[in-house]
C-alpha cells in the first residue's frame, strides 16, 4: 500500500516536471527550428552579402538577397516609435502615478489598458484610412504609406507598455525620497522629475526596452501602413521591415527565396534575444534598488 502510493506520487511528480519543462522545450524548439532553417540561405548567399546587401530582389531573374534595407528600416522605425512614444508615455506615467486625481487616474488607466487590447490589424486599418491619407495631404507626398506612417502607428502601439511599466516603477519609489526632497523646499513637480524619476530609472529603462521589443516585432499593423517596398529607409518612402519582409512573401515563396525568409526571421530572433537580455538586466536592477 505504502509503496504504490510512493510510486503514484513519483509519477505525478514526473508529469508536473514535464509540464514545467515545456516552456524550456518551446524556446529550444523555436531556436533550433530558426537556426536549422535560417542557416542554409545565409550559407548560400554569404553572411556579409546577406546582412549588408542593399538590394532585395527575390523574384528577379538573378535574384538578390540583401536585407540591409529591412534591418535599417526596423531600426529606424523602432527608434522613431521610441522617440515619439516614450516621451508621451513617460509623461503620462508620471502624471498617473503621482499627480492625477484618483478618478482621472482610473479613467486614463482604463483607457491605456484598452489601447493595449486593441488588435494590431485594427491599428493597421485605422492607419490605412486615416493616417496614410493624412500624411499624403499634409506633406504633399505621392503616397502616404511610408516609414513615417509606420512610426506613428508603432508609437501608439507601444504606449501601453511604456505607461504601465513606468507607472509600476514610479509607484515603487519610497515615499521617504520624496519627503526628503519636499523638506528641502522643492515643489512636488520638481520632486517627481528630479527625485522620483531618477530613482525609478531602471524600471523606466525596462519600459523603453519593452517598447523596443514590441515595436521591432510588430508585423501586421506595419504591413498595412508602410507600403511594403524594399527601399532603403526614408521617412516618406514606402519601406519594408524585417517582420513584414517575412510576412509579405511567405505565402508564395519557394526555394532559396523561402529559405532567405527564414534567415530574416533568424536575424529578427537574434535582435529579440538581445532585447530580452537587456530587459532582464534592467528589471533585475530595478528590483535591487
Amino acid at each position, binding site marked *: 500500500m505504502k509503496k504504490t502510493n510512493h510510486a503514484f*506520487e513519483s509519477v505525478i511528480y514526473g508529469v*508536473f516536471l514535464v509540464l514545467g519543462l515545456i516552456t524550456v522545450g*518551446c524556446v529550444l524548439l523555436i531556436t533550433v527550428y530558426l537556426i536549422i532553417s535560417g542557416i542554409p540561405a545565409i550559407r548560400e548567399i554569404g553572411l556579409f552579402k546577406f546582412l549588408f546587401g542593399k538590394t532585395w530582389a527575390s523574384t528577379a531573374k538573378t535574384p538578390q538577397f540583401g536585407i540591409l534595407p529591412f534591418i535599417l528600416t526596423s531600426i529606424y522605425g523602432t527608434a522613431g516609435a521610441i522617440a515619439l512614444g516614450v516621451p508621451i508615455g513617460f509623461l503620462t506615467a508620471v502624471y498617473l502615478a503621482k499627480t492625477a486625481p484618483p478618478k482621472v487616474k482610473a479613467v486614463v488607466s482604463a483607457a491605456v489598458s484598452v*489601447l493595449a487590447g486593441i*488588435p494590431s490589424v485594427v491599428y493597421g486599418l485605422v492607419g490605412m484610412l*486615416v493616417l496614410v491619407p493624412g500624411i499624403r495631404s499634409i506633406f504633399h507626398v505621392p503616397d502616404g504609406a511610408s516609414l513615417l506612417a509606420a512610426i506613428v502607428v508603432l508609437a501608439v502601439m507601444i504606449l501601453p507598455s511604456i505607461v504601465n511599466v513606468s507607472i509600476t516603477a514610479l509607484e515603487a519609489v519610497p515615499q521617504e525620497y520624496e519627503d526628503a526632497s519636499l523638506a528641502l523646499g522643492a515643489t512636488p513637480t520638481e520632486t517627481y522629475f528630479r527625485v522620483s524619476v531618477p530613482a525609478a530609472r531602471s524600471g523606466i529603462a525596462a519600459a523603453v526596452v519593452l517598447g523596443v521589443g514590441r515595436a521591432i516585432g510588430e508585423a501586421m499593423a506595419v504591413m*498595412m501602413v508602410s507600403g511594403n517596398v524594399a527601399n532603403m529607409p526614408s521617412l516618406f518612402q514606402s519601406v519594408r521591415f524585417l517582420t513584414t519582409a517575412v510576412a509579405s512573401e511567405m505565402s508564395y515563396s519557394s526555394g532559396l527565396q523561402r529559405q532567405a525568409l527564414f534567415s530574416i526571421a533568424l536575424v529578427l530572433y537574434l535582435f529579440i534575444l538581445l532585447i530580452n537580455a537587456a530587459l532582464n538586466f534592467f528589471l533585475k536592477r530595478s528590483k535591487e534598488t
Partner: protein
Amino acid sequence: MQTGISKKRRAYILLMRILMWLSAALTAGLVLFLVTYVMAKGLPEISWNLLTTKPSYLTGNIGILPDILNTVYIIIAALIFVIPLGAGAAVYLNEYARNKKLVAVIEYAAETLSGIPSIIYGLVGMLFFCSFLDMQTSLLAGALTLVIMNLPTVLRTTQESLKTVAQSYREGAFGLGAGKWRVIRTVVLPGCVDGIITGCILSVGRILGESAALLFTAGFAHAVHGFFEGLGSAGATLTVALYVYAKEQGEFGVAFAIAAILMVLTLLIQLAAMLVGRYFKKRRDL
C-alpha cells in the same frame, strides 16, 4: 524668509505640468478617437446577413459566419491545451521545484517566450505543426501555435495566485496525512482558480487580436464547418479576415464591421478581467 520661488522655477514647474497633462490627454484622446471612429464606421456595416452567411464569389455576398466560428473553435482548442500546460507548469514551479537554477531557467524561458514576436511564432508553427507534424494549414495547427504563445500568460497568472494560497492551508492538509498530490488537488488547485481564469481571459484577448501567427498556420479560408471538422481544415479568424478584406480585397466596409466587433469584444474582455480580479480579491479578503 524669501517671498517665493524664482520665476525660472515657476516656469519649469508650469511647463512640466502642462507637458504631463497634454501627454495624458493625448493618450486618453487617442483611445477615445480609436474607439469612436471604429464604432462609427463599423457598427452601421453590421447586418444580420453579414453575421449569418458565408462569402460567395458567385453571388458577390460577403458574410463572416465562418470567421466567427473559426475564432470560437480556435479559442476553445487553444484553451483546452494551454490551461493544463500553463497551470501545470506553475504548479511545478511553485509546489515541486527545489532546484533554484532550474526554476530560473524555466522562468527565463517563459519571459523569452513572451517577448518573441508573433510573426516568428507563425513561422515556427508553420514549420513544426503544419510541415513536420503534417497537420497542413489548419485551425488545429494555428491553435497549437497560439498555445505556445499564451503559455507564459497562463503560467504567470496562475503562479501569482498560487503565491496567495496560504502556506498554512498546505501545512494543515499535510498535517492530516494527505499525500502531496492530494494536497495539490484539494487545496492548491482550487486556490488558484482565479489565476487560471484571469490567464484564460487574457489569452482569449490575445487570440482574438492575433493575426501574424495565424496567417501561415491556420490560413484564410472561409468555409463553414463543425468543430472537429473545422480543426482539421484551414480557416481565417475574425482578425485574419479583417486583414484579408482590408489589405487584399479593399472591402473596407466589412473590415470596419469586423473591427467594430473586435473592439466591442476587446472592451468586454477588459471589463471581464477587471470584474474577475475584483470578485476574487473580495472573496480572498473575506
